[in-house]
């Protein structure tokens, strides 16, 4: 029961953090939510990360300064949930004793680029299906937003991922890894 409360608290805090950052004025398609969801998935488990991604995009859909997301919202939730899920899966693939190094940053950057692309493809395809636009046209029209999104996330993950893992690991102590086991 106590652990469940902790999980709820962590999820709430992380969601509030993500939504807060989402609502902060910023250039279009430069965002930190992907990093936080991936990192949460990495630290607290795949399902937890996925849940955070979906919840954040759900709330963001109503409060976004770019307007109500409307029927695109489920696609955004799916894309961001994927980000958190893969964070957890990536953590599992590293095994118990992984080292925080530049390689980790580089790998995280590669994953971020791929996942961001998938996220953008999912949302654009969703848009195309819902508004009866040809998929290739929807993708091609949004390509420069996609490029900005992919490049910014790649740079962000490549620059800070391992540092954030270290900082949060140090702050939370060894408990951080136990959350994941409990959730999974």
């Amino acid at each position, binding site marked *: 029961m106590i652990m469940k409360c902790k999980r709820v608290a962590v999820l709430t805090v992380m969601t509030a953090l993500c939504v807060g950052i989402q609502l902060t004025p910023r250039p279009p398609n430069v965002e930190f939510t992907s990093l936080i969801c991936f990192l949460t998935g990495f630290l607290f488990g795949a399902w937890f990360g996925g849940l955070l991604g979906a919840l954040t995009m759900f709330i963001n859909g109503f409060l976004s300064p770019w307007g109500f997301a409307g029927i695109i919202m489920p696609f955004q939730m799916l894309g961001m949930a994927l980000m958190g899920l893969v964070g957890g899966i990536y953590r599992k*693939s590293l095994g118990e004793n992984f080292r925080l190094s530049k*390689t980790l940053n*580089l*790998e995280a950057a*590669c*994953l971020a*680029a*791929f996942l961001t*692309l998938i996220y953008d*493809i999912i949302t654009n395809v969703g848009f195309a299906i819902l508004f009866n636009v040809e998929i*290739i*046209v929807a*993708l*091609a*029209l949004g*390509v*420069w937003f*996609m*490029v900005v999104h*992919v490049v910014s996330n790649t740079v962000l993950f490549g620059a800070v991922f391992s540092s954030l893992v270290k900082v949060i690991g140090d702050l939370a102590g060894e408990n951080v890894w136990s959350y994941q086991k409990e959730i999974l």
Partner: protein
Amino acid sequence: MELSKRNLIMVLLAWLTSISLLSLVAASYYLELHKEKQVCEKYEDMYNELVENYTDLLNSYQNLVQKYESEKQNLTELLEQYQGCIMRVDICIDYGEWNGTVVWYNNTIVPLGCNLLEATKKVAIVNSTYWPAYQASFVDAINGVWNQGACYWMWYRWDTEENLWVYGDCGADRYTLTNNEILMWRYEIPSYP
């Protein structure tokens, strides 16, 4: 070995992402090119239509110019024919006591042997009364300005030798004009001697 496999997967993902993005950029440019091509074709059609319309207009204009030239030539010939039957005079209308306005009608073409009253009627609306006793007409009004009180329309001719205006000494319809003569109507209180 496992690390290498994961690295390979990461490289593959990065490569896949790059290829996808590049393909989408290329697709975007292709769509843009296609759109521009369509716009270009549309403008080309518009341009051709415009050229066609312009050519039609130019042809019409040239025909019109040709007609104008032809008409001008006819009129010039006609004018040359009548050159010996016309003369030119300068007529001045001075509204003096009325409002002080002075209007000149230079190079007014009138028939040879025309009198002042006929010439004035060519440039203004004249009301006159014929007096059989004098066998002459008396001008009552010019352009709606009527003789009133002590003010009358009087006429003058320009004496080229003396370089001064000389009072007309007969009725306007009794005075026959000569070529290049200068005449004046003045609305005034007469000081005729």
